[in-house]
């Protein structure tokens, strides 16, 4: 039992409760157990003793060995210290080197980093310097591009350095500078093209002229010339007019502005500038364009040059010039040009200058057409100028005509020999068949004025046609206009000169010759028309009746002839020397009357060249004048008394005149027409000499009566004179009976006449 419990305690580490219980409750009590336990302890002690005895030797050996190890350890320690110091010694340099190395590596790394950074900065800097050089070299557009690169690519990449900020700050300034500089360039350019545009225009005009004058012959000739090297023209120059101008500043400027985002502003600016320039160009430099062709040329060249350049800019695009803007500016300008030209040309009096100006304007128009610009209203201007040109020519020819007329003798041309004859026939179309057969000296019916004027009209037509050449008018229209102008020249200018001629009195014969001459000139107009159609190459038009072309001049001449004759009649009548108290008529007509009538018939025969109408008018005027003057003589208040003798003498004279009138002094008169002029006088004389008062007083106021043309006043006036004369003659003598009766009758008639007069008021 106690054994088992010790075993149990020995076998079980914990849970010793039950063992203790058994011990406590067991048979022998706890002394047995303590005995057994002591025994057990003595047993274990014996066993420990046995064991220690067994291992004691080994222990001593171990301690001995341990002491050995201790020395060894000490040895080792020394050795190790030694080695350690050795190592320490040797590694010290190494360590310093390593540290050095570390530092170097760090520097190296730093350098690499710096280089990296610097490499980033470098393009910026080179770009910046490039920018600077570009700006300096005025290559603004690349500069601007560089600037942009700098701003947007390079700068952000580099980082926030101070200098970068500076550069950044510099960028707007640079941009402005570039803008300013490019503007300056533009101004230079504008100035430059202002200078060049006349040259451009001149060149364009010249090219147009060359082109217009292009013909096979010319081309061949030019070719030959150039092959022979005659034309030393340098072909190095520009081929096109606009090539004279270097547009690059403009384009650069445009690019710059478009880069700057101010393209529209720039375009506006450019257009505004050019518009201003256009205004300047449109004001002629010389002021007086009509002074010389040179001024006109340079003016047109300048205008043309301006628009050629604009047109070029339109075609080269870039939007700098729009079609609308160009057309707008052009229409403004062309109106101004037209008005300038109009004012200038209207002052010109030199036809040659006008011709050259017209040529220039034509060239201008053609060139304008080449550049696709509308030409209106220039063609209209040319037409107006044509009218003015005609005016100028007419004025010039007025001078020519005046010269011709001033120096004209108005005598028929007389030629002494064939040569002279041919000379006249060559200049004037005259059907000389009849004259051809006559012996020299031959006499033409017209005066030298006729061929002279005819030649001058031809000259005028030549000059006139010079203007219309190249105007693009058809031959027919040209011819019609030329005919119109020529007939205007004759009917207005020449007739005007003729009329001026009539302002001073001309001898009768000259007047006659003028009328004859105008007839020949008029007949020659059909030849002039033929001439016109020949040189204009159009069909002959003969419809226009030229009949009345010189009518007014002829009327003037005829009037002058009439005046002339009337004046002569007056001169004769001023010689009148009537003795109003004549007792017996002489039985002969008065001298001045016979002289006058023979003079008149002489003159009228020498007027035979005149057209019938003119002769009739002349003789009418003369007879009418005679009748009026004679009648006035009779009724003249200054003549107080008229004796019946004087009355008979006057009657005799009137009869002479009536005979002349009845004798049809010129052909073409109505039967008895001239006599009508004397009718009033005749009735008065018949009434008084026939003493036919009863029928007069009976018929008075009745139409178609025998004395219808005698007014009571005239009858009374004459009767009074008669009475006065009779009273005078009978103042000393005693009146006979029949004389008394006569006196009585006379008084009655007078009274009646007075009454009639009063009735008439």
């Amino acid at each position, binding site marked *: 039992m106690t054994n088992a419990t010790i075993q149990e305690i020995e076998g079980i580490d914990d849970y010793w409760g039950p063992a203790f219980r058994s011990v406590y409750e067991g048979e022998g009590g706890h002394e047995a157990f303590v005995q057994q336990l002591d025994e057990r302890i003595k047993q274990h002690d014996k066993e420990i003793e046995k064991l220690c005895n067994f291992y004691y030797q080994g222990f001593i050996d171990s301690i001995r060995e341990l002491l050995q190890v201790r020395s060894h350890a000490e040895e080792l320690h020394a050795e190790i210290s030694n080695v350690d110091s050795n190592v320490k010694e040797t590694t010290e340099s190494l360590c310093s080197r390593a540290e050095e190395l570390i530092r170097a590596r760090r520097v190296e790394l730093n350098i690499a980093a710096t280089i990296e950074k610097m490499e980033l900065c470098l393009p910026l800097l080179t770009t910046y310097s490039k920018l600077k050089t570009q700006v300096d070299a005025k290559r603004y557009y690349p500069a601007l591009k560089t600037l942009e690169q700098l701003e947007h690519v390079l700068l952000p990449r580099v980082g926030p350095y101070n200098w970068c900020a500076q550069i950044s700050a510099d960028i707007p300034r640079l941009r402005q500078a570039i803008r300013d500089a490019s503007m300056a360039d533009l101004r230079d350019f504008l100035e430059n093209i202002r200078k060049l545009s006349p040259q451009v225009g001149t060149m364009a005009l010249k090219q147009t002229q060359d082109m217009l004058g292009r013909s096979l012959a010319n081309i061949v000739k030019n070719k030959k010339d150039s092959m022979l090297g005659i034309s030393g023209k340098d072909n190095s120059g520009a081929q096109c007019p606009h090539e004279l101008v270097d547009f690059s500043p403009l384009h650069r400027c445009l690019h710059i502005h478009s880069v700057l985002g101010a393209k529209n502003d720039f375009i506006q600016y450019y257009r505004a500038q050019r518009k201003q320039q256009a205004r300047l160009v449109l004001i002629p430099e010389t002021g007086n364009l009509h002074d010389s062709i040179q001024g006109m040329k340079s003016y047109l060249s300048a205008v043309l040059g301006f628009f050629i350049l604009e047109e070029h800019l339109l075609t080269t695009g870039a939007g700098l010039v729009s079609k609308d803007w160009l057309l707008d500016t052009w229409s403004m300008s062309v109106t101004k040009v037209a008005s300038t030209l109009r004012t200038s040309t209207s002052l010109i009096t030199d036809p040659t200058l006008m011709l050259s100006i017209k040529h220039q304007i034509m060239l201008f128009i053609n060139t304008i057409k080449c550049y696709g610009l509308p030409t209106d209203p220039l063609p209209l201007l040319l037409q107006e100028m044509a009218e003015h040109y005609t005016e100028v020519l007419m004025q010039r020819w007025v001078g020519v005509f005046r010269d011709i007329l001033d120096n004209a003798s*108005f*005598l028929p041309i007389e030629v002494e020999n064939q040569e002279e004859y041919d000379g006249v026939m060559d200049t004037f179309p005259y059907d000389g068949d009849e004259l051809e057969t006559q012996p020299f000296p031959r006499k033409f019916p017209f005066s030298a004025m006729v061929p002279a004027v005819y030649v001058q009209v031809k000259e005028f037509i030549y000059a006139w046609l010079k203007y219309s050449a190249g105007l693009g008018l058809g031959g027919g229209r040209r011819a019609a206009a030329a005919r119109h102008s020529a007939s205007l020249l004759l009917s207005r200018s020449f007739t005007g000169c003729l009329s001026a001629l009539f302002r001073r009195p001309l001898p*009768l014969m000259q007047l006659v010759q003028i009328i004859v001459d105008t007839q020949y000139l008029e007949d020659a107009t059909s030849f002039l028309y033929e001439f016109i159609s020949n040189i204009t190459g159009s069909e002959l038009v003969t419809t226009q009746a030229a009949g009345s072309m010189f009518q007014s001049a002829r009327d003037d001449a005829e009037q002058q002839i009439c005046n002339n004759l009337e004046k002569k009649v007056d001169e004769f009548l001023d010689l009148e020397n009537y*003795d109003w*108290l004549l007792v017996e008529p002489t039985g002969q007509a008065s001298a001045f009357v016979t002289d006058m009538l023979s*003079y008149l018939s*002489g*003159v009228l*025969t020498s007027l035979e060249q005149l057209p019938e109408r003119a002769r009739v008018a002349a003789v009418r005027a003369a007879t009418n004048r005679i009748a009026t003057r004679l009648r006035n003589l009779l009724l003249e208040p200054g003549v107080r008394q008229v004796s019946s003798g004087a009355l008979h003498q006057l009657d005799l004279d009137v009869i002479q005149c009536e005979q002349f009138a009845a004798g049809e002094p010129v052909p073409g008169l109505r039967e008895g027409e001239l006599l009508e002029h004397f009718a009033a006088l005749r009735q008065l004389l018949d009434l008084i000499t026939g003493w036919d008062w009863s029928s007069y007083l009976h018929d008075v106021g009745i139409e178609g009566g025998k004395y219808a043309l005698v007014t009571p006043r005239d009858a009374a006036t004459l009767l009074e004179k008669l009475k006065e004369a009779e009273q005078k003659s009978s103042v000393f003598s005693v009146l006979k009976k029949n004389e008394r009766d006569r006196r009585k009758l006379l008084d009655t008639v007078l009274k009646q006449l007075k009454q009639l007069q009063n009735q008439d008021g």
Partner: protein
Amino acid sequence: MAKTYDYLFKLLLIGDSGVGKTSILFRFSEDAFNISFISTIGIDFKIRTIDLDGKKVKLQIWDTAGQERFRTITTAYYRGSMGIMLVYDVTNEKSFENIKNWIRNIEENASADVEKMILGNKCDLDAKRQVSKERGEQLAIEYQIKFVETSAKDSLNVEYAFYTLARDIKAKMEKKQEASNPPGARSGAHQLRANEQQRKPTSWLSRCSVL
């Protein structure tokens, strides 16, 4: 009615074509000269009133065409003429020689008592002269006619010539009047006529010669 003149003398200019008859007349009537030659066609006249010894004398001067073809027209005027100017051109020998023919013409056509005068015109053209003044003088004396050299261009002796001729006509006429008139009633034919009832042959005569 007041008369505008006391006497009317009809004068005639004759001579070759181109001697200057019209120019002389033009100078006398208008006191002007025209260099260009315009030959007279047929006949023309000019009137100028001059004053002679207080009398108004109207000169009706007939200018004739010198050209042969107008001869018939012009000779008709010889008869009524009271004075005839025979004109030649001192630079034209022929015109001078023809003076004799013109005188014969006068003798044939004009009234016998017509006053005559010879004018040597264009005496300003001394360089071209063909007829000396002495020869003119000689001829004039031969025919018992007055003579003077004239220049229409320079207005030399033209007035003188006409006045002389007019004066001679007037003297001749007054002499005739006196011969056929009582001595108390000399001249003043018109005044007489105006005052007297009786027609005087004197005034008749003066008018007759006008014919």
